[in-house]
């Protein structure tokens, strides 16, 4: 919705307010959708993954898995990785759809850009490769979130100290490192897929 306001303001200065739809669509699908959705998932689910695995570490549940002769990676990391790879593109798509309709709510209903213009121009200018770029980004962000958060939780006793303080540090580090890696990786992905 903010993008709708800001986009309309900028475009109308050049007499191009009819391009609000493509601008909102491209910005969301290629960039804002994957990145913001990934940052939200990091804060919501990534922190939970790191904390849960960290608590399993300090309460010796991971040791128990090892002593049963089972591979803890298979039980703790693989399901989270698969879930992140499946969920990230879906959540990003949801984010994009809500964002595009939010942009229309402002541009179309409040500022007078017609629905035909908004969605018609968007359909014209947004190509399948733009959608694929968003999907590729969200998939890679899913891998980053699951990988970093699982790793931080799993090794919380070793790198951040034992006890609840160690888990708390591991969780903070997981969120910060994931967020920074998402932004840095986004730059490289954009450079490659540009």
């Amino acid at each position, binding site marked *: 919705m903010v993008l709708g306001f800001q986009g309309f303001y900028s475009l109308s200065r050049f007499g191009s307010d009819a391009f609000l739809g493509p601008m909102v669509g491209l910005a969301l699908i290629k960039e804002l959708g994957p990145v913001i959705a990934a940052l939200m998932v990091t804060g919501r689910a990534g922190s939970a993954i790191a904390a849960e695995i960290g608590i*399993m570490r300090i*309460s010796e*549940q991971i*040791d*128990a898995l*090892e*002593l049963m*002769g*089972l591979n803890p990676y298979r039980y703790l990391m693989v399901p989270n990785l698969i879930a992140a790879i499946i969920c990230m593109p879906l959540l990003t798509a949801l984010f994009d759809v809500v964002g595009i309709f939010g942009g229309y709510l402002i541009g179309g209903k409040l500022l007078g850009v017609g629905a035909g213009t908004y969605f018609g121009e968007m359909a014209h200018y947004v190509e399948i490769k733009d959608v694929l770029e968003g999907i590729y980004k969200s998939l890679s962000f899913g891998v980053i979130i699951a990988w970093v958060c699982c790793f931080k939780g799993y090794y919380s006793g070793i790198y951040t100290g034992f006890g609840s303080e160690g888990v708390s540090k591991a969780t903070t580090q997981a969120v910060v490192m994931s967020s920074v890696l998402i932004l840095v990786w986004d730059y490289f992905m954009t450079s490659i897929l540009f």
Partner: protein
Amino acid sequence: MIKIDKLQKSFDGHDVLKGISFEVGKGQVFALVGGSGGGKSVLLKHVAGLMKPDHGSVMVDGLKISGSGQKALRMFRERLGFLFQGGALFDSLNVFENVAFPLKEKSKLGRNVIREKVMRELENVGLIGSEHRYPSQISGGMVKRAALARALVEDPEIMLFDEPTTGLDPVTGQSILKLIDDCHRRLSFTGIIVTHEIPKVFAIVDRVIMLHQGLVRLEGTPSDFMESRDPVIQAFLNG
């Protein structure tokens, strides 16, 4: 069966184990006693292969635990049961699922056979009726019982107990010790019990090892321990 030879371990320059050596024969149960922070749990984790020694070795039936590859370690752990101090039950699984977990994940037994085995084990530890409750919904004593059932469900040849009665009231603690004794009679496992429960634990063990300042202070029978005139042991016995 279990041979510990000159085991040394230090953390951040602090020597916890300074060359521990002893042997546990097949079917024997040892009590490992000593002051808090004396390295008893660390020693137990070396036997289980969860920690690597700085020097020395742990051998089980000729297999060097510390130098084994993952495959050999996994095969050794097939024969091992470990009762953790806090139980280490999986929070997201109920009591039944926790006990069934190793069988479900590793064996090819059918659902009904697993159910039968788990229920029998739960009956042995007196947890029938609590199988659908989660670890957060049961008492500390029940957690230990459930953890014991999980450790024993695969009929291990070697059992390691890390402070099985710590944090429990005397009656519950005594019942856990009796349970361990009953299980030993039934399964004839080789066991090491890390405990502070002196002299109660002496009724169920063959030998006692006292660790003091990273070294074995005494190795002997429970009566050797009780009759010792060593001032450190006297102080430990009399508080």
